[in-house]
């Protein structure tokens, strides 16, 4: 008998089940999963976009709105200049292919390395309840772009902001079915309070998260 079987049969013995897992039990678990029942949720008596903005800021992200993707390069340039940040960035290819020529920013569409300072990504979905970005890993949606650089800029189309995390999962199942290797929910910059309980921003991940919502998309 393997360690696996010994552990599982110890559990079964404790719950007084028959000697092996039955098909009926498997079917019960399967139907529970398929139901995707919602637990009790807090009231969502707010509008999605204002809530998203408010919570992004509460989670220490900065926030901006433009009309469409075409306006994004200028908004990024404005942000980087305001904060005196380098005018050089790595981005997901979908972002790198925007027209950056007028902005004076060099944008490379490649995965981030440890020494890149600004990373620009799209967003799979925004979650209004908590001001959260839902990012999926993939061939052209590199996970490290939102992680290694000191500054992370995320572009979020307003039509892709949902109310709660439950809504985000339901929509993701409808749209893509299987989950990618990594799903990251990012809510503001990296933080720690491990020295005397005093909050510090920028532990291992970005110091700054700047969210740009494209309101007409």
């Amino acid at each position, binding site marked *: 008998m393997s*360690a*696996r079987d*010994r*552990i*599982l049969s*110890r*559990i079964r013995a*404790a*719950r*007084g089940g028959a000697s092996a*897992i039955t098909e009926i*039990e*498997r079917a*019960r*678990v399967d139907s*529970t*999963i398929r139901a*995707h*029942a919602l*637990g*009790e949720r*807090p*009231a969502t008596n707010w509008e999605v976009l204002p809530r998203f903005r408010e919570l992004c800021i509460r*989670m220490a992200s900065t926030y901006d709105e433009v009309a469409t993707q075409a306006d994004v390069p200028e908004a990024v340039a404005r942000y980087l200049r305001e904060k005196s940040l380098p005018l050089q960035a790595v981005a997901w290819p979908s972002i790198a292919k925007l027209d950056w020529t007028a902005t004076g920013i060099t944008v490379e569409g490649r*995965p981030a390395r*440890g020494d890149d300072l600004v990373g620009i990504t799209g967003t799979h979905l925004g979650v209004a*309840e*908590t001001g*959260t970005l839902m990012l999926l*890993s993939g061939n*052209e949606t*590199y*996970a*490290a772009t939102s*992680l290694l650089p000191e500054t992370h800029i995320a572009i979020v189309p307003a039509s892709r902001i949902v109310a*709660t*995390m439950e809504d985000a*999962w339901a929509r993701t199942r409808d749209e893509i079915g299987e*989950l*990618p*290797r*990594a*799903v*990251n929910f*990012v*809510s*503001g910059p*990296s*933080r*720690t*309070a*491990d*020295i*005397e*309980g005093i909050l*510090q921003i*920028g*532990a*291992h*991940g970005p110091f700054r998260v700047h969210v740009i919502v494209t309101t007409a998309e």
Partner: protein
Amino acid sequence: MSTPSSAGTRPHSTISFKDRAHDRLNDAKVQRAMRNFNLAGARTRGMLDMENLEDIRTSAAAIRDRSLEMLDVWLERFEKEATRRGVTVHWAETHEDANRIIVDIARANDVKKVIKSKSMVSEESHLNGALESAGMKVVETDLGEYIVQLAGETPSHIIAPAIHKSREDVGDLFHEHHKTPRKTDPAELTMEARKFLREHFLSADMGITGGNFLIADTGSLVLVTNEGNGRMTTTMPRIHVAITGIEKVLGTMEDLSCILRLLTRSATGQPISNYITINTGPKAEGDADGPEQMHVVIVDAGRARLLGTDMQEALRCIRCGACMNHCPVYQNIGGHAYGWVYPGPIGSVLTPNYIGLEKALDLPNAATLCNQCGVVCPVKIPLPDLMRKLREKQLDRGLRPWKERAAIRMWAWAAQRPAMYALLTRIAARVGRTAGGADRTIHKLPGNGWTEGRDLPAPSGKTFRELYASRTRK
């Protein structure tokens, strides 16, 4: 006292809670650190936006119970889905088995350096020691865990591991280990740790994480962090190994969404932690980043023993730390006094169950049963009830000292004889009042150290039953 060795001792032998607690009460540094500690206030503020908090707690407890009631079936489903996605699932009956499995994975892949994100199960099993004995370098990456590792100690809180350390302590440690100029500003210290740990993230061969939850539906592993070290550990090295307990399985992402609202608010008051990382398998074809291998080690080590018993509710625990943050005993002595991995009320329940009732005799008694922990627990674990049941088990198994057993037997004998009981309490109340003297305070109890540090208010001279009788007559 608070030398690395004593703070870090984690005996599998008997835990002497009394001595440890006594030391911490007399340790000015621990006392100062505990005064600075107020995650309870953060939780209170964090819960304000949830008017239906009680309904959400009930829902969360039901979600955890549903997993525990058919735990084997849920685990089998998790294993099936995770395996389909390319994860290698391992099963460990004991801590030693878990360590051996992980050392073997590291050896088979020629691993030299391991980075770790927080894992309390690996603290249970002393995994770092096992890897180091096998010749590997192990670096903790949660800032608190890193500080504790440099000091050669163990965590004193499950989510704030270095809460017992002052900025000066951290300054000394970094100066010694990093060979940099000594600093004491928390911001500068955090930056210095970031710089040194970034090097390790980029050069490690293997990343080890815990697992806040396993999701049966998708075969996913869930990590909740604020620092981003969980993301780093699962993104940069070529091998990712997660170690977690059998009880951590949830059915669906909907279950997770419900539980997360309570977990992060109960822990730090945040509506959500900065990073919720969900890993489902290793790097896929064409992925730019991620590990080539992903392993999940599912550990029993005493947990299954609690299933189907009056202790099962303890397995609902989602490791938020709220029970310790609200415990008047923890707030005065800190985590190391509890002598094993889990401090506070949940530790007082888990430790005797995991390492043996006879090895942690004081722990179920290290509480006033005030029920602050029971009120704040997000998954409604009846912690005071469980501690009381453990006390009863100690008595049943004859594990309490003879004096205590004799005293309880005498009390039981008297309490079953109402007239005798009334007489004895009347005598005690009268004697107590006389002993109180003019200031109605007893300064010294005979044969008992209790009054060494405080006074006992003297009884008024009348028993409850006498007062009750006189009032009902009126």
